[in-house]
């Protein structure tokens, strides 16, 4: 038997199965089959292809993003100046969901400004690291450290005490970052904004800010079991400001799973298959 020394990656991801070359000829198996079939070869002599190009890895993860199947036209889901809301009861996974959206943008080298009104920087940071590690494990990425180093510069965390937060302060901070060329966000995530009576003006100001700065904004909205939604299913907190939101997604526990339900925007007419979140990993399930 010929001694297998190395396989060369041919940079093709068609049909989600990678193709390889072996001694100059195409090696036809997809990776899982390939691993099954060559069990009789002494593994000492095989060099597995672990050192994939970081750019390729990023592309692969972007393509595997399960949200692509929800019927949104752009990878960002939202366009410039648009608002999106992720709604759920406490502890269902709003932050984890938004962190996955953020990581997807960061993989595409789009900058994400994450504003938290509830958690300190360290905790938000940990969310990202944890979700990233889970994605890396799910897709068996061996170069996770290098990949993490390349996506990290695309994120900036700002935390405020909920009572100390105002759009004016945020605007000041944002101008500091943009004018000094430190960070220009493409996506903004606001986690923990209380959707109470006083939120209307804040949201209107934020909409203007988003338009001026050419970014879109995602919010987490905490819903409550005892509050009745409107006939279209929009939770009570969002009814008064629903006009400002182009997309609304609700996370609903269904049995032991969590369903991602589009309430507003593409997919809300029941024209797309519902996606699920795996409660064990809090990751959106890849149902391909």
């Amino acid at each position: 038997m010929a001694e297998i020394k190395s396989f060369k990656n041919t940079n093709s991801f068609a049909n989600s199965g990678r193709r390889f070359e072996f001694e100059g000829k195409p090696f036809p198996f997809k990776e899982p089959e390939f691993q099954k079939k060559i069990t009789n070869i002494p593994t000492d002599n095989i060099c597995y292809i672990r050192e994939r190009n970081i750019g390729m890895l990023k592309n692969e993860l972007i393509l595997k993003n399960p949200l692509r199947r929800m019927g949104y036209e752009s990878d960002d889901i939202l366009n410039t100046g648009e608002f999106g809301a992720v709604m759920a009861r406490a502890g269902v996974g709003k932050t984890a969901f938004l962190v996955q959206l953020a990581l997807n943008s960061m993989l595409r080298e789009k900058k994400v400004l994450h504003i938290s009104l509830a958690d300190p920087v360290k905790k938000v940071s940990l969310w990202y690291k944890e979700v990233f590690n889970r994605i890396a494990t799910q897709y068996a990425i061996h170069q996770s450290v290098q990949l993490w180093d390349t996506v990290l510069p695309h994120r900036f965390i700002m935390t405020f005490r909920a009572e100390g937060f105002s759009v004016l302060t945020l605007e000041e901070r944002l101008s500091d970052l943009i004018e000094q060329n430190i960070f220009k966000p493409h996506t903004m995530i606001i986690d923990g904004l209380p959707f109470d009576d006083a939120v209307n003006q804040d949201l209107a100001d934020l909409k203007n800010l988003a338009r001026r700065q050419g970014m879109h904004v995602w919010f987490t909205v905490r819903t409550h079991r005892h509050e009745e939604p409107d006939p279209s299913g929009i939770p009570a907190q969002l009814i008064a400001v629903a006009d400002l939101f182009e997309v609304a997604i609700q996370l609903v526990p269904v049995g032991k799973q969590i369903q991602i339900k589009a309430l507003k925007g593409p997919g809300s007419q029941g024209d797309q298959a519902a996606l699920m979140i795996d409660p064990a990993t809090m990751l959106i399930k890849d149902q391909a």
Partner: protein
Amino acid sequence: MKKDIRNLRNIGISAHIDSGKTTLTERILYYAKRIHTMHDVKGKDGVGATMDSMELEKERGITIASAATYCEWLNHEINIIDTPGHVDFTIEVERSLRVLDGAILVLCGVAGVQSQSITVDQQMNRYQVPCIAFVNKCDRSGANPLRVAKQLKEKLGHNALTMQLPIGLEADFEGVIDLITMQAAYFDGDKGEQVRREEIPADLMQTALDNREILIDQASMFSDGLTEAILEEKDVSDEMIIEGIRQGVIARQLTPVFIGSAYKNKGIQPLLDAVTRLLPCPLDVENQAMDMDNDEQVIALSNAVGKPLVALAFKLEDGPYGQLTYIRVYQGALTKGDTIVNVRTRKKVKVGRLIRMHADQMEDINTIPAGYIGALFGVDCSSGDTFVAPGISLTMTSMYVPEPVISLAIFPKDNKSEVNVSKALGRFTKEDPTFKAYVNEETGDTIISGMGELHLEVYIERMRREYQAEVETSPPRVAYRETITRKAEFDYIHKKQTGGAGQFGRVAGYLEPVQDEDFVFENKIRGGAIPTQFIAACEKGFKNSMQKGPKMEFPVTGIRVVINDGASHSVDSSDMAFQVAARGAFRQGYAKAKPVIQEPIMKVVVETPTEFQGTVMATLNQRRALIVGTQEEGLFSVIETQVPLSEMFGYATDLRSVTKGRAQFTMEFLTYKQVPQTIADELVKKASAEKKNVA
């Protein structure tokens, strides 16, 4: 020394820089009547705090070396170690926590849980040290002890338990409400020495009752007796509550929070009461040692005096009477005239003078029983050595010693200085495992390395003051490293068979990057392609190659070497031949494995008034910082960043000038990361220029 070990507390005081650790210690010593006048850190009288005994400490107003002292309170003996707050002197904190049974975590009432509090908390976790928290500076504007207790929960994950409520805050801070005795305590007299206990002010009564309920509820989680009393609606005595909380503290499940203002002499006596009531005595803590004669089997130590001695030397100091070795006895007793054995060197030592330390003063004693801390003279050892009674071979697990990250070359100005520098370096390197000195073989320069600019600065200053050694220094150098980024194969033959004794060895296999390890060697040779007796030589050859990377001559780390084939010659193969072959193989594989240079990245946390946030971020951005995030805490903002160490020189001055001296920062080693290509090119250029100069 008194002998009732249940009335003994070995405690440390740890916190972020300028939280008031030394001021608190000064108050404790005063109230315990150990000192008769109080002096302040950098006080107007110019005397300086008692625990800052080093001249340099008094001048700079910082603690550099941890100092040990003891005092008595409520018939209890308390050994106290005051530790530095600056992360550059982190080893002092590590070695103190290693030998302590409990700690007071001091937090600033205004700034709350700061970056160094987080580091200290991690260190306490490492050595499983139970603690109580003291929220200091409640008299300052912006102080809010309840917010700090909340931060203790959120940021450090402690189960913080409010033990006291403030009576007034900021400038109106008058005293505290004790939620166990349900009394208000005020601190009268010039120096707060008289504690006046009164009824709780009516307007605070309801809040106090609510908080007491929470306190009892929490305490009942750790005491069946208390739970029973609550369920059966019996009277709940103060002792029952204290016992419940004490169990929670010892199990590291509860962190009682006390409040006060050390500078304004408020709240110290109740804190001392709590130290005696809530923190563990040596009997409550299980200490373990490893039996070196029995495959490092872990053995629990007993505090019984009759057992053979086991003691740990945790700190060395060179004093006027020779080397002073601080020691904690874990088992048996250390008595004057005993013969003891240093487990590391196996040398027998006779115990001469034994003393108890009080900052720079000492008191002669005859014996140090188990559980106690003392010091002995005239013993030659390194810090971290274990001493035992002859006949046993137990060793305490060692302390965590971080690697130095910064170095600079020093040049003695004259001959006299040259002699003194070597004396000073000999002493400092022995005292402080994070401070290293060596001679660069190529340039002949003496290089010193340590944990930060301040760390090295302090040692250079101490050389000048204590050894009259004047030195000039080169700009600081960063400890770069090399590593590989991909797997690469090697197949190298070393062959020299022309005349004389021949040399032959072939080594084949591959190198690959490995995380979290410096060097891993794996032998996968089957069928004796390389005879077993040469495998060790191969490993040595590879390991030696790691000391100086082929790319830039920086140390190489993070490599797994696997050898899976080779060849030998019955006559010409030797250890030396295989070592040379391994070095050749390493060079061959390394060149193909995409080597890169890595630099130390520091976690830098800047605390600044919010108005300067933008400017501070700009200064950081100029220094290649990756800004992780900003946190607004009222009037203050905290900026968390990751910055290459090479960019941080002189940052203290820059920060001072852009914030009018109102911001401060802490810096600690985070990780090694790849140097950007442009910087790597500069380094290559610089190195080749230096090589030319040497030539």
